[in-house]
């Protein structure tokens, strides 16, 4: 099969192997943000990662949030703005802003 959507195909594969999985999706952007609305990243409980939601600036923070969300099943909207490059908090160095929606994949039980 062609890789027409490598992110969701990977997510489905992890689910079939009974792994907990979270899906992060860029839902809004302002200014110059590295990835457009609709960009996705899937994260498994083993911390396998497929896809991206920025140029690498906020991924670690999204993955940390995703680990919690895949446990609780409670989705979250994460907001990121311009970072202070001197500080350690996640943010975008490009001067843009993004909102990332993170949800668990799998039926709530």
């Amino acid at each position, binding site marked *: *099969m*062609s*890789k*027409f*959507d*490598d992110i*969701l*195909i990977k*997510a*489905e594969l992890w*689910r079939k192997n009974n792994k907990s999985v979270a*899906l992060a*999706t860029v*839902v*809004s952007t302002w200014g110059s943000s590295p990835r457009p*609305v*609709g960009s996705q990243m899937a994260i498994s409980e083993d911390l396998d990662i497929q896809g991206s939601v920025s140029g690498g600036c906020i991924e670690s923070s999204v993955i940390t949030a995703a680990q919690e969300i895949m446990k609780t099943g*409670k*989705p979250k*909207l994460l907001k990121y703005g311009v970072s202070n490059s001197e500080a350690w908090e996640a943010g975008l160095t490009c001067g843009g802003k993004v*909102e990332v*929606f993170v*949800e*668990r*994949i*799998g*039926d709530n039980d």
Partner: protein
Amino acid sequence: MKDKTLSQILSEKQNRNTIVVATEINSGEQIIVKNDSDSEINNKILFTAKNNIIQGKSEVIEIESKKWFINISLAPLRLIIVGAVHIAQPLAEIATISGYEVIIIDPRAAFANNQRFPDIKIVNEWPEVALNNLEIDHRTAVVTLTHDPKLDDSALNAALKSNAFYIGSLGSKKTHNARIQRLKMAHFSDTEINKIHGPIGLNIGAKSPQEIAISIMSEIVSIRNKFENNGDN
């Protein structure tokens, strides 16, 4: 997202259908938006997001003070390569990495086989027949690489009548001029003939099959982005 929703999204994508998923951002409530439904929220979203759906524009919209993310997935981009020649091998790989679904057409099974093209869909049929069966839509690019007028022209016969967003033909200026003359004899109009990118690819001085593949893929990407920047999808 339910497992069932995920598998529905994947199967619609594989069938080259547009799929619209609406997610309420606070609760995570999620539906696959349908054209005909008895569900009240489905129909409200369908009405409010109708322009998004037409333009293929994913966005957060507000309905009754709730925020819904409307995620529109269009048919995957697709590259059909006619001619399982050497250039087709790196091109199939580069296109796959670029997110394109790749199909190789060549009636010569000695060239077009999964030994030479692992994991790529192969059609061992006459190009015109194969292309007509594939229903070339506006998210499909077609390139002809055979150097053999019998095969290339057969492909162009189908491709020029299709909605393909890109058509390219390998060959020198001389080869391309000869191709134009044959297509004119076959009663194709200048407008139709001008749709063909030939000599194919961006001019990056490419020589090896790998470099030519890069030049072809770069041209396809540049044409695709021009379309999208114009608001077409």
